[in-house]
């Protein structure tokens, strides 16, 4: 059994709540006394994945698990999915609409940033079915 587990509903209809899951988990990590460098990496990776779930996936669910030696973060949505994952992973690639860009997203840096900040990163997606992102950060 996981030492700690928490689930989140990621609602895309409420812009005020964007980033709330990452924000709350960040606080958890600080209270647990996790090393600042790890908090920094986790914050960035989790925030980018949460935002992608909202703006590209149309909302979904998130979960965090803490084990003795690692953190695992999962975001899952039933949005449009990603046809070409390799392409999506490229720095600067983005399908974000003008509206989304106006909100300050859509530089095409999210996925590469998640990769950079996680120890292990997996993205599973089928067009038309949805996307699941799994981030592992070693403690």
């Amino acid at each position, binding site marked *: 059994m996981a030492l700690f587990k928490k689930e989140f509903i990621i609602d895309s209809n409420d812009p005020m709540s964007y980033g709330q899951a990452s924000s709350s988990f960040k606080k958890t990590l600080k209270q647990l006394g996790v090393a*600042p460098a790890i908090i*920094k990496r986790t914050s960035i990776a989790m925030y980018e994945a949460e935002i992608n779930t909202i703006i590209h996936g149309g909302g979904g669910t998130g979960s965090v698990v803490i084990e*003795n030696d690692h953190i695992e973060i999962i975001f899952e949505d039933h949005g449009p999915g990603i046809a070409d994952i390799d392409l999506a992973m490229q720095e600067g690639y983005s399908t974000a609409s003008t509206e989304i860009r106006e909100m300050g997203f859509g530089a095409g840096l999210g996925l590469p940033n998640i990769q950079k900040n996680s120890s292990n990163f997996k993205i599973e997606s089928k067009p038309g079915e949805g996307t699941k992102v799994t981030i592992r950060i070693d403690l």
Partner: protein
Amino acid sequence: MTVLKHSVILDKDKCLGCTNCIAHCPTEAIRVRQGKAYIIAERCIDCGECIRVCPHHAKKAQSHTLEALKQYDFTVAIPAPTLYGQFRDHTSIDMILTALKKVGFDDIFEAAEAADIVTAKLKKMLKTKDKNVPWISSSCPAIVRLIQIRFPDLLEQVVNIESPMEIAARIIKNEIYPDKKNIGVFFISPCPAKITAVRNPIGSKVSAVDGVIAINEIFLDLQTAVHSLDSIEELGKASSWGISWARSEGESHSTEWTETVAVDGIGNVIKFLEELENGKIKHVDFIEAMACPGGCVGGALTVENPYICKARIIRKAAKVKRPPEERNKTEKRDNLLMMDAELSPAETLKLDNDFKTALEKMSRIEQYTEELPGLDCGSCGAPTCRALAEDIVNGCAKKNDCIFVLRNEIKDLTENLAELGSWMPPLFSKDGKKK
């Protein structure tokens, strides 16, 4: 006067236990227990937010008074530039500085002059692009403490240059009056955070400042002195840049660097730092972050309205035409500018030193949070339901402190009682009499 590490204190007689302050505390450091507010010392950053919001003026700051000057043979005042904005435009900076001498100080070194010196150093630092950008200003001690407590992962981005106050004091003692015996250096402060920064220094092992007098403590004396000046000495040395540090954007603009940002007000700073942690802040090299609304002009120990003060600072600074200078500079100067102690995370939020125990406590906190009503009403004396959950797990509160939980328990209890009351043992008849 007992010397506490913090300067914000509670006047128990005035506190009604109204819970106004607890929701406003940015580090959730206040609880109401037994009808009185109580400050959790390890969490307090002395930002003065509670002093500002308390309707009963029960929160105050411990400042020195002019009496303290008597302990020294020679005294120097370091007035914060915010002091200049407490007086109307026709009271010039030189008049205020002369008045400071009249109330008892032997010499003056403006914090604004030290701000000019910090500016020169910041400019050099910004030119050498560093992996730590964006840099976060270290001039507001409430913000540095906030970062130590709530944003430990951002600590390495805090500029390791001392605050103008500390630098001014070091210059006075090491470069201007190195041979003076029994010299007392006093900062004239807009806020409790600076008082605490002297008692319990952040970036230096021991502060070179000997005492701090709050602006609202010295104001009336100064006002009287200003009105009875025989002559006005030309004491002002700071440039308009340094004087502008009193208000938001003053510090960031003084760097003359394009990619800077100024954030003021503790709530705004917290939101901004959250975004910075998320990697959302881009194309910024320097962040000026001030705890008070409008910058130091909004300090909790000032007299004048922050916006009036800010407008006056802008006008008074505009009148000053002299360039920044670095008088009395010796080969010691470079060292005097830097912090001599490491900024380390304050582990006050940490639930336990043992990771497994901390995790176990965290799981219980999550569970209690689920069980509480989520109204964050403050009636339990904690700022949020989650904070109560944390207090329960830390052993300093009970679930029944929540009035809703208590009410439900009473309801269950009365229902049980009623049910028990209506229950007739088989030997009893319907009217309850044993025939």
